[in-house]
């Protein structure tokens, strides 16, 4: 017997907005006499203490994980969404044809796909796939929008860096045609079609400074905008 009988939820029918609604009226705290109150109170307190003591003497119920130490045993669900990556096939060719569907689907403008005219094929192909991790919300819309299933959210979630500009990645390892187009080329042409790309080879942040040791790449038509914005790492783009 406590001050509240938690099992006693009063069931009723009430009408609101012309609809009959079954309601459960939650229990109230009973009125008690002075001594009864003290005894019930003490009993309730003891019950709570028994509960916590039960946890104290059962270390098996501990749920915390020792995070950096348990890296090796960390399990991720298959669909866990962390850093974006381009999928590469067994030959090391990406599947991206540079259609910019992901760029259009992205709600935060975190993706910038730069295409170039292929030196071998003569068609438009992926030059740089720039992903701004610092403004990405991992909403998965880009992956869903991709018509050639070239994108994937990986389980890599540790992204701490000292400079926010280092969070702007170039996702493609090479500039060149996707696997589909590569299949039509011979060995020599494939090598010629591929130009290696670095992880930090993209343009600088919308209003930031160039990265140390990485030459800034100016996107055609955006030279003016890039030069006008003041160099700052604390810009409103955050």
């Amino acid at each position, binding site marked *: 017997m406590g001050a509240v009988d938690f099992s006693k939820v009063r069931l009723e029918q009430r009408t609101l907005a012309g609809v009959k609604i079954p309601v459960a009226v939650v229990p109230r705290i009973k009125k008690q006499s002075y001594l009864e109150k003290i005894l019930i109170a003490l009993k309730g*307190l003891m019950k*709570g203490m028994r509960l916590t003591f039960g946890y104290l003497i059962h270390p098996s119920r*501990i749920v*915390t994980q020792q995070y950096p130490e348990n890296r090796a045993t960390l399990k991720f669900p298959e669909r866990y969404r962390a850093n974006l990556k381009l999928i590469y096939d067994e030959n090391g060719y990406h599947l991206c044809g540079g259609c910019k569907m992901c760029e259009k689907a992205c709600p935060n403008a975190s993706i910038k796909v730069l295409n170039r005219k292929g030196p071998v094929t003569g068609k438009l192909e992926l030059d740089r796939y720039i992903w701004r991790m610092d403004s990405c919300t991992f909403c998965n819309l880009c992956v869903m929008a991709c018509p050639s299933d070239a994108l994937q959210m990986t389980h890599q979630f540790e992204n701490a860096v000292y400079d926010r500009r280092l969070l702007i990645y170039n996702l493609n390892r090479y500039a060149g045609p996707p696997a589909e187009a590569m299949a039509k080329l011979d060995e020599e042409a494939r090598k010629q079609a591929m130009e290696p790309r670095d992880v930090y080879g993209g343009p600088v942040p919308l209003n930031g400074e160039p990265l140390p040791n990485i030459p800034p790449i100016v996107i055609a038509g955006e030279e003016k905008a890039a030069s006008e914005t003041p160099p700052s790492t604390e810009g409103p783009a955050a």
Partner: protein
Amino acid sequence: MHESVVTTWMMTAGAWQAKTWAELASDALSQNIWLTVAYIAGGLIGSMTAVTILGLALIYAERKIAGHFQCRLGPMRVGPHGIFQTLADVVKLLMKEDIIPDRADKAMHLLAPFLAMGATMLVIAVIPYSPLLQLVDLNIGVLYVTAISGFGVMGILLGGWSSNNKWSLLGAMRSGAQIISYEVSATLALMVVVLFAGTLSLRGIVESQMDGWWIWRAHGVGIVAFIIYLIASTAEINRTPFDIPEGESELTGGFHTEYSGMRFSFFFLAEFLNMFVVGAMAATLFLGGWMPFHLGGWEGFNNVMGLIPPIVWFYGKVFFIIFVIMWFRWTFPRLRVDQLMRLEWKVLLPIGFVNLLAASVLVLTNLYFFPGN
């Protein structure tokens, strides 16, 4: 505080009547003043070291116990199972900037943590840790302890007032009201034992429990007094569920909101040492101090119990009380300030008075166990 094993064993071999260090010191006083000075200095240094070690141990214990109450592990990083975590925190606190708020009352702001800490240190001097180890045996020990621990509120009041912060002030005022109220109940509960023991000397009270602890010797009066003392003193030392002066979710830290670095650590340490003092007082008055657990007629059992050194008994009892206080903290929510007052003046105080009355009747009629001793 930590005697050699040999001394301990000498005492258990029936040396309870041996002179304590305090008596030796008072003997020495009549002979050589330098001995006394050395004694005082040694006592100070000894108790400061002891207090620091104790504080660190208690903070570590609280964090570990809290962790396990909450399905956590507690500190795990610094040292095996995090045993050096508190030490690391002390280093951190010492190295932190000591910020004094603008327009604060500087002198008082600086003084307050030392007052809070000093009051506790003074109490530590009179507690009988073992038959031999007691720095001073005052013949008004209980009165002294109650008086001095009430002095600790001055530190909190000053700290809150001088911080020039409304939250601090609220916390300090709450603390003042709380400690003044709950001291009444705590003292009433202590009076019960004083009545039975017939002495105010802490050493005398411990020795009066040779045949049985006061918590059970007095037909229920003892246990009621013990519970009242436990609740009231938990309130006195501002622990949950009575931690309204800090009231983290309401007052953002209460009286120590504006303290940082070493001064904050003094408040922090004082809280834990107060807990130790409460545990020590409860153990001394209700649980027989360093007396081993004896059962009448069970000679073999009593002998085995007697083999355990008294200081282990004392610390065992103290840590049990401290554990119970921590257990309170990690189970209960916090009371409101007026509910706190209601609990004191409408529940604890009337029960305390009735209990004291019953105790005096029992004492007058000799209606308790082993009244002869």
